[in-house]
């Protein structure tokens, strides 16, 4: 599945998106743990998950949401549009 980063998360990971193998990852939390383990940059981006929001297939969900069938997961700070 495609994992995308926006705003300061994108700056911390230093990438805007990447392909991740979802095998064995049941929920968003599982994915976050797997991403944290990728390296220092990813760990820094997810250091404080209370500051991070997530959308699965363009719908905002909680960290306990299932990743079954997910094609796109995006991580971002609270929105500041308008």
């Amino acid at each position: 599945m495609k994992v995308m980063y926006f705003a300061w998360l994108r700056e911390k990971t230093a990438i805007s998106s990447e392909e991740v193998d979802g095998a064995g990852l049941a929920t968003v939390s599982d994915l976050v743990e797997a991403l944290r383990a990728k390296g220092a940059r990813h760990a820094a981006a997810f250091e404080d998950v209370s500051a991070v929001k997530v959308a699965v297939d363009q719908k905002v969900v909680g960290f306990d949401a299932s990743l079954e069938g997910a094609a796109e997961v995006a991580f971002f700070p609270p929105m500041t549009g308008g």
Partner: protein
Amino acid sequence: MAVRVQEEDFDLGVEAAALRGSGDAGALVTFSGIVRGGEGDVAAMTLEHYPGMTEAALEEIEAEACARWDLSASLIIHRVGRLMPGENIMMVAAASRHRKAAFEAAEFLMDYLKTRAPFWKKEETPEGARWVDAREADDDAASRWAK
């Protein structure tokens, strides 16, 4: 009912005039957000967004407004990219037969847009660039529309 996400500026008057002949509308309410200048020395503001989800989220917000109020027309235009103080950021418009629905729908569109539309603002200041924090007041404003 229309949604536009674009880099280009828009003309509030032109957009309002285009909506004026909508159906049986006797009331047209518009709101526009502008890049604040002067305080805090913000030199420029850049709006990042999530292409695909941005349009979908705005359309969903607009559909919600049309379900709650009897609107002849509604419009959301939101710019992205690097903007200077004094420039238009975005606008919402709501047209209805009478003013109550138009005023309430316009406020609803704004409150929901502030918390549910995937945009992120970065300000450039003399001290460096910083990401704008989401405001609790915006969450409070959005939650008052909960049914």
